[in-house]
Every structure is written in structure tokens, then in C-alpha cells.
């Protein structure tokens, strides 16, 4: 790279592109916008988990003529929210399959009278029996989806599992479960739609994936590509929660706009957002593992099941990621993983940071501690003896080519957390204290980018434009919702063009302006899209140099002059780059084996906890998060991703419980669905190792999802260290701790000769 007068940009804490707007309150989120003549829309939902719609009556005391009313009959195209299998209706016509299913839409100029109008619509049902748990779905108590309630299954087979059981010194078996988790972005979902016969439909709103929304609108409205425009507005958090459901809301707003001829805004309130939109899949994982007496894993069987809710939506892909991560960062000579996603009569579960991996890794990392306890060796040692090493293969028989050394990573985490000293000290102190302390760890990995052949199918396209004034513009549909997409992609383009960061900006995520760079999910933006930005930016440079407007080495001013010269002679200066699968990244969809991800991030997290025997509350006193993430492109943003992910992981482990009744969330409020506040969290100490990555922009890997995989098992392992009680389910609330301690006390009273339960 020939660089004149500029310092490196990648790796520097440059200002966030949209930061000034955010700190001054000028950033415009969807609810901050309004259009002339705009109406407000609302959704009439099912009140029962499953049944046939028999009759709908409108209370005559409401002047319905003032309202725009939309039902399934008003849908011009296919009545579905197009995604993978298109099974979810946009509006229920005859049957409802969960208690938040949309049936009708209303719009009115005065938003305050909408709740009263919704209450004045009586829907009569013929109820059908419903199912609410994985177990009820598995035994096919009722068939509610397809022939067998199963959305998807996967099987991973490696080696000869059947041969290992007889060679094992120990067989360790257990079952682990995780609960639903609400993304709880602070900005609720919302959309504005307008329709005009000429340009077609335009939708503005809070979302992660403009082209998913675009695809859903085309199918629903039966409109060609160029008659649908989707624009992302500033988005106040997403975490996966705005991957798919925004398509539903956009479809609703668009139907109301088409019928009324006016712009329509739909903004969910907190209760509607929490109850009706997607949450993390509840899961159940069963492990049966054959180990030698010195702690070597010979082989094992893992059964991983997720509750997908009433429609298939993203469950197959969530299941896929969870399945591939189920074996953790360990070498399994023999393994069989059987996975399935099943249907229940709850609102569909969906994407949430980690996407299945936090569920299966919780089980894996709890199970490693169980194996250690059974064998009487330390949790550290059992991990060391089974770590994947370069040259070995993962459960999908992907050969590890990265020079990762998990032993060294673990050593550093142990030193940073003072693990061994604390573990000894806590054991001594706990004997005489009512505040029991413990320390636990989790070692894990997270694959970056779409799974398997996913990136091949996406074939993302990215553009970079050199403008007449010498400014550079990045053209992507990848969205900013807090992670720093805009900033980091601009850093990459600036670095690739040897220009100051200020020379580069990024186009609005508007499908009329930007190509489809794929969805903003799966820790793929910096690694996959970033690499394409890098290559498209180099294309601009190449065009200018080969046309003779620019020398190999240039100043920003010379670049500016070259852009002006080029555009005056030839018009637009744009360079596009499309994803090309690396030749050695091969995946077999049939056998479910091969290179599952082009790169993995690796981590060791250590949690230190106190369990108070008066309140049974668990507090976290210290948290070390050490990870290898390739090159860190922006230290402040990268650290922010880790601390934020850890905080959500702490919530997943200790606070966030969805209370279900008949498929409906009962605590759909911030007052009784508890997420961590600033006062609840420990110091989260973040450390990076940077090995680089040939597949990512300037060596970067994905980083967004990784940090939510590790906290829950590290914390529950620490709780076991503190109490000597092994918990297999999260969230782990004070009442669960109380129950377990009480049960142990009862047991001790019954059998006074036994010494505890350890």
C-alpha cells in the first residue's frame, strides 16, 4: 500500500459516523418521522393459541367508516411473509396458530382511538387444542405443523460412535435447557409505508435487512422489483430481533397505505413488541459422552432441540448454527449430533444474537464441568485435554487451518482472572461465610458469516463510488443499528484507498440506492461485507490508475483531482465486488459436513460470582472476556460489542425469564421482564488476541455474536463452584437457588450420614 500523508485508519478509534447525531438527539428514528396526511395503523390479533375463525363482529357504537380496515382479502399477492418456507401468513384468514397472530389491520388519523377500536372487534373462534412445550410437540399430542410438528432436522455423524461406549471409563449424561429471551432493543419496532401507483410502495423503518423486507413486499403485493422501495431509518437496537419481523410490519403498513391511499405509520408499544415479535428459541440439549479416566473425550451423542413456535420462519437456520456449535471448541473423534426444530402454538421464535449457539454452547460448557466433576479433575484440565488443535477436525470435519492455540488463550484468561488462587481461597472462605463465592469458566468458538453454503447462495454485492468532488461513498444494504457498521465499513474503504477517514461516507440503506450486500446478521458484516468493500475500493483505485488519472502513490488532493477528471470524462465512477467463494471452503448440504464457516472467533470467559444465602441472589463480582477475533478494526467499537454482548449474556443467565401462559408472554413489560441495569453489572474486562484472518477485511473476523455465547455457562459453572449444586437450566433465578438449597438441606436431614451432595 502506497500511502502519502495519512495515518493508518483500520485499528484506530475514529469517530462514529452517525455519533454526533446520536449524542445531540438529532438522529431520526422511525417514530420521529411523519408524512403529510399520515394515518396510524394498529393490529388486531388472535386472543387464543389455536383455532378456527368463525365470525368477526364490529361493535356498532364505533363509527367504522372513519377507519381503514384491512383483512386477508385485501392482499393482492401471496398471503405470506416471504422468508425461507413462506408458511407464515401476513394476516390469518381462517385459522390462527398462536395467540398473537395478526388477523385484521386498522388505520385512523387519531392514534389514541385505535385501542378502543381494537377492543370493539369481537372475533369468535372454534378453539382447537394447542401445544406449548417441546415435549408436547415431540409426542405429537396434536399435529399443528406439517405431518409431524418438525420444521427441520439435521444429523452430523463423524467417526464410529457405536464403537466407543465399550471403551469408555465413564459415560456422562445430562440434559440442559435454556429459556426464551427477548431482544429488548430500546426502540420498539415501527414502519411507515406510502403507496402511489407510479413509484409503487415505499417503506421506511427500523430494520436489519432491507432486502428481506423488499422481498416480502414484492411477494405480498405482487409488485415488480422496481415498484418496491425500502429505506432503513436510524435503528435503535436490533440484536436479531429486527431480522425478520420488520417484514411483517412493513407488509401491514403497506396494505393499509394501499387501501387508504395515505401514508400509514405503525409503531408498536413495548407490550406489543415484547409479546408478538420474535424471541430467542427455548432449547433442550441432551449429552451422552464417553470419556477415559484421564478426561479424554472418546465420543458422544448430542441431541439438540429448539422450540420454533407456530411457523417455520428462521428456525431451520437457527437450528443449523446451534447444531454446528454444539460440540464446542473440542476435538471429537466420534460424534453423532441429532437436531430438530419443533412447532408449538407460541409466536414464532427467531433470531437473537448467537442464533442457536448460546443454547447449545450453554449445554456443552456445563457438560464439560459435569465431566470434570465426575472424574474428579479440574474444569480447566478437562478442557485442556480436549481442545481442538490446528490440523484436527471439527464435528463437521472441517480442518482447523487457523494457528489457534487454545491452551495459551486459556492460560492468559486464568492469569487475568487469577483463577487458581481465587478458586482455592473461595473454597476456604465459603466454609464460614453466608456469602458463597465461586469462579467458573467457559471456552467456546463462534463461526463468522452464513453457515455452510450460505454465503455462496447470498452472493452479496457491494459497491464503492468515487464522486466528482473526490468523496468516496460505500454502497451496501448492510445496516447500522449500534454495532458500528457505517464507521467500520468507511474505515475499510478509506484504508483501501489510502484516504483520510473523513473522505468516505456511506449511502443510506435504501434499496433504490444500494445493492444487496446481504442481511446484517451472522457476524458477517465486517468479515464478509468488509472484504467486499475493500475489494470494491481497490477497484476504484485500479480504474483511476490504469486510466492514467492517478499514480500508484498519491495524496488525497491528487485523488480528488483524479475523481473530478474521471467523472468529467466518463461519468459515474463506481466499482462493484461480488462474493466469490474461496476455493477451499467446501460444504456438503446433504451430509452436513465440511467447512461450516470460513473463520471462527475463539474465546475464554471467566466469571466470579457471589451467592448470598440470605437473598439467594447471584451477583457477579468480576468478569474476564478474552477472545481471538482476527484483527480488531476499531478498538472502542469492538470492546463495546463485547461488553454489550456479555451484559445480554448475563441477562440470559440470571435475569431474563419469559413467563408463558398458553403460548402468550405474561410479562411483556419492562417492569417485570428484567434486564440488567448499570448497577447490576460487574466490571467486564475485555481482552483481545489478534491472529488475523485471510478471509476478512484487513484480517478481521466476525465479533457481534461471540460474546453472548460464553457468559451463561461461565456464570452457572461459577455458581456450581460456589454452592456445590449443579444447575442445568437458565435463567437461574433466586427462587431456583432457594429451591435447590432447600432441597439439599432436606436431603441432608433425611440422610445425616452423607456429607453433602458433592
Amino acid at each position, binding site marked *: 500500500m502506497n500511502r502519502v500523508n495519512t495515518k493508518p485508519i483500520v485499528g484506530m478509534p475514529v469517530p462514529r459516523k452517525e455519533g454526533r447525531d446520536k*449524542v*445531540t438527539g438529532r438522529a431520526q428514528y422511525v417514530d420521529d418521522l411523519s408524512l403529510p396526511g399520515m394515518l396510524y395503523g394498529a393490529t388486531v390479533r388472535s386472543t387464543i393459541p389455536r383455532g378456527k375463525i368463525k365470525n368477526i363482529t364490529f361493535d356498532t357504537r364505533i363509527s367504522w367508516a372513519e377507519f381503514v380496515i384491512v383483512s386477508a382479502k385485501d392482499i393482492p399477492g401471496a398471503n405470506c411473509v416471504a422468508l425461507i418456507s413462506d408458511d407464515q401468513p401476513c394476516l390469518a384468514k381462517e385459522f390462527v396458530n398462536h395467540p398473537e397472530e395478526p388477523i385484521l389491520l386498522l388505520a385512523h388519523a387519531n392514534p389514541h382511538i385505535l385501542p378502543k377500536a381494537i377492543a370493539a372487534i369481537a372475533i369468535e373462534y372454534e378453539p382447537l387444542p394447542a401445544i406449548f412445550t417441546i415435549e408436547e410437540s415431540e409426542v405429537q399430542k396434536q399435529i399443528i405443523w406439517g405431518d409431524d410438528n418438525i420444521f427441520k432436522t439435521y444429523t452430523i455423524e463423524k467417526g464410529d460412535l457405536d464403537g466407543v461406549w465399550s471403551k469408555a471409563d465413564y459415560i456422562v449424561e445430562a440434559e440442559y435447557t435454556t429459556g426464551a429471551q427477548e431482544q429488548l432493543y430500546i426502540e420498539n419496532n415501527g414502519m411507515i409505508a406510502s403507496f402511489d401507483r407510479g413509484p409503487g410502495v415505499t417503506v421506511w423503518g427500523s430494520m436489519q435487512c432491507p432486502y428481506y423486507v423488499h422481498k416480502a413486499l414484492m411477494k405480498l403485493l405482487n409488485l415488480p422489483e422496481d415498484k418496491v422501495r425500502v429505506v432503513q431509518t436510524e435503528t435503535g437496537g436490533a440484536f436479531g430481533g429486527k431480522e425478520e419481523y420488520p417484514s411483517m410490519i412493513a407488509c401491514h403498513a403497506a396494505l393499509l397505505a394501499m387501501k387508504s391511499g395515505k401514508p400509514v405509520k405503525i409503531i408498536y408499544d413495548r407490550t406489543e413488541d415484547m409479546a408478538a415479535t420474535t424471541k430467542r428459541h427455548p432449547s433442550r440439549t441432551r449429552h451422552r459422552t464417553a470419556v477415559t479416566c484421564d478426561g479424554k473425550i472418546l465420543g458422544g451423542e448430542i441431541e439438540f432441540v429448539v422450540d420454533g413456535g407456530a411457523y417455520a420462519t428462521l428456525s431451520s437456520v437457527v437450528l443449523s448454527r446451534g447444531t454446528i456449535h454444539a460440540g464446542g471448541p473440542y476435538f471429537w473423534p466420534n460424534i453423532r449430533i441429532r437436531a430438530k426444530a419443533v412447532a408449538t402454538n407460541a409466536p414464532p421464535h427467531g433470531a437473537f444474537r448467537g442464533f442457536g449457539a448460546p443454547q447449545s454452547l450453554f449445554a456443552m460448557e456445563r457438560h464439560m464441568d459435569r465431566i470434570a466433576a465426575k472424574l474428579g479433575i479440574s474444569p480447566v484440565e478437562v478442557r485442556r485435554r480436549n481442545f481442538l488443535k490446528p490440523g484436527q477436525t471439527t464435528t463437521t470435519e472441517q480442518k482447523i487451518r487457523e494457528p489457534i492455540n487454545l491452551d495459551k488463550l486459556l492460560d492468559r484468561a486464568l492469569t487475568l482472572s487469577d483463577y487458581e488462587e481465587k478458586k482455592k481461597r473461595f473454597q476456604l472462605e465459603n466454609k464460614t461465610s453466608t456469602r458463597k463465592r465461586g469462579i467458573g469458566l467457559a471456552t467456546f468458538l463462534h463461526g463468522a458469516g452464513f453457515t455452510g453454503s450460505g454465503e455462496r447462495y447470498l452472493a452479496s454485492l457491494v459497491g464503492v463510488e468515487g464522486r466528482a468532488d473526490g468523496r468516496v461513498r460505500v454502497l451496501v444494504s448492510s445496516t447500522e443499528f449500534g454495532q458500528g457498521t457505517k464507521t467500520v465499513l468507511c474505515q475499510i474503504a478509506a484504508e483501501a484507498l489510502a484516504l483520510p477517514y473523513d473522505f468516505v461516507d456511506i449511502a443510506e440503506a435504501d434499496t433504490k440506492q444500494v445493492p444487496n450486500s446481504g442481511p446484517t446478521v451472522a457476524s458477517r458484516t465486517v468479515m464478509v461485507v468488509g472484504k467486499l468493500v475493500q475489494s470494491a475500493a481497490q477497484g476504484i483505485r485500479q480504474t483511476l490508475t490504469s486510466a492514467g488519472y492517478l499514480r500508484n502513490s498519491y495524496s488525497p488532493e491528487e485523488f480528488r483531482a483524479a475523481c473530478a477528471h474521471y467523472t468529467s470524462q466518463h461519468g459515474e465512477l463506481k466499482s462493484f465486488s461480488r462474493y466469490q467463494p474461496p476455493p477451499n471452503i467446501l460444504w456438503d448440504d446433504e451430509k452436513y459436513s465440511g467447512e461450516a464457516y470460513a473463520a471462527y472467533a475463539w474465546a475464554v470467559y471467566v466469571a466470579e460470582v457471589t451467592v448470598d444465602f440470605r437473598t439467594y441472589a447471584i451477583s457477579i463480582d468480576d468478569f474476564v472476556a478474552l477472545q481471538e477475533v482476527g484483527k480488531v478494526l476499531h478498538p472502542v467499537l469492538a470492546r463495546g460489542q463485547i461488553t454489550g454482548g456479555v451484559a445480554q449474556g448475563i441477562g440470559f443467565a440470571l435475569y431474563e425469564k419469559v413467563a408463558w401462559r398458553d403460548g402468550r408472554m405474561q410479562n411483556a*413489560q419492562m417492569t417485570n421482564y428484567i434486564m440488567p441495569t448499570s*448497577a447490576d453489572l460487574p466490571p467486564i474486562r475485555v481482552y483481545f488476541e489478534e491472529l488475523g484472518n485471510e478471509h476478512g477485511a484487513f484480517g478481521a473476523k466476525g465479533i457481534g455474536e461471540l460474546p453472548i455465547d460464553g457468559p451463561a455457562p461461565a456464570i452457572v459453572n461459577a455458581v456450581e463452584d460456589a454452592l456445590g449444586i449443579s444447575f442445568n437450566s437458565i435463567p437461574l433465578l433466586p427462587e431456583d437457588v432457594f429451591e435447590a438449597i432447600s432441597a439439599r438441606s432436606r436431603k441432608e436431614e433425611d440422610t445425616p450420614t452423607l456429607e453433602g451432595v458433592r
Partner: protein
Amino acid sequence: MTPSAGLCEISLTVNGEKRTVRAHPMERLLDFLRHQLGLTGAKEGCGEGECGSCSVLLNGEAVTSCLIPILHADGATIVTIEGLASDSQLHPLQQAFLECGGAQCGICTPGLILAAAVLLNGNARPEMEDIKEGLGGNLCRCTGYAQICEAVARAAADSHENQPNESTR
């Protein structure tokens, strides 16, 4: 409904500007600020005073404007995020949030900056624990709060550095 029925006259000062308006007495201060004055920096996150993203300063105290009827603000002095920066100069807290990574998605940021301003008004040299306690009423889902708390600490430190008579640092 007749549009003007039940309206009352309210006088208040918003971001230094005196205003007299007619409003329904129970209209939420949040809606009044956003819809009547176009001050959209205060956000509705939960509508029940839990998340703090609608925080504004009412007579110098941080309040959740989704719970305040406009009548309650009669005669009050209100400061919103839009009133914090003077001209084009960012408030030290805004600058520190920007530099320390205190704002990610930005939706909670206006409320948090105002809550932090109240905190620093009452305690110019807060310890990290004071900051964590002081911001406990404002939820942020992105950051895990670490960089927010560091931003507040930096803003406090910077304001001391800018006071020439103090030689404690």
C-alpha cells in the same frame, strides 16, 4: 370529541424559550415535546417510566417524561437533549459519549446524557460506583454500560481540567 374541549393554558420554558400553549392537561409531557414542539430527542421506550429513554430535565431534575402530565409542567423549566449543546459546541458529556463509545444505537443516549448531567450537577467528582448507581434508572441494551460510565467519568475529569483554580489532578 371536540378538539378544544378541556384544554388548559400551560406556560413553561423549554430549552431557554418561554412558551404558552393550550394542551389537554393529561397529555404526556413526552408527546407534547415530540409532537407539538418537534423535539424528538426524547424517545418512548416503554411508556411506563422503566427505561429512561424519555428522560428530560424538569426544574433541573431528570424525569421520565412519559409519566408526566403536561399540567404538572406548568411553570416549569424543561431542558431536553436538544437544549444541552450550545450552538455547535457539544456539551462535555456529549463529547465524552462520542469518544468513549457511550452511544451505540443511540436510542437511550439522550436520556442517559441528561441523567448523567443531573448526576454531575450533584456530584462533580463521582466514583465509578456513584456513576453506576446514578444511571441505574436508564436502560441501555447495547453497551453493557461500561463505556457509558467511563464517558461520564471522563466528562467529570475534563470539566475539572478546564477549571484553572483546581489543582487536584
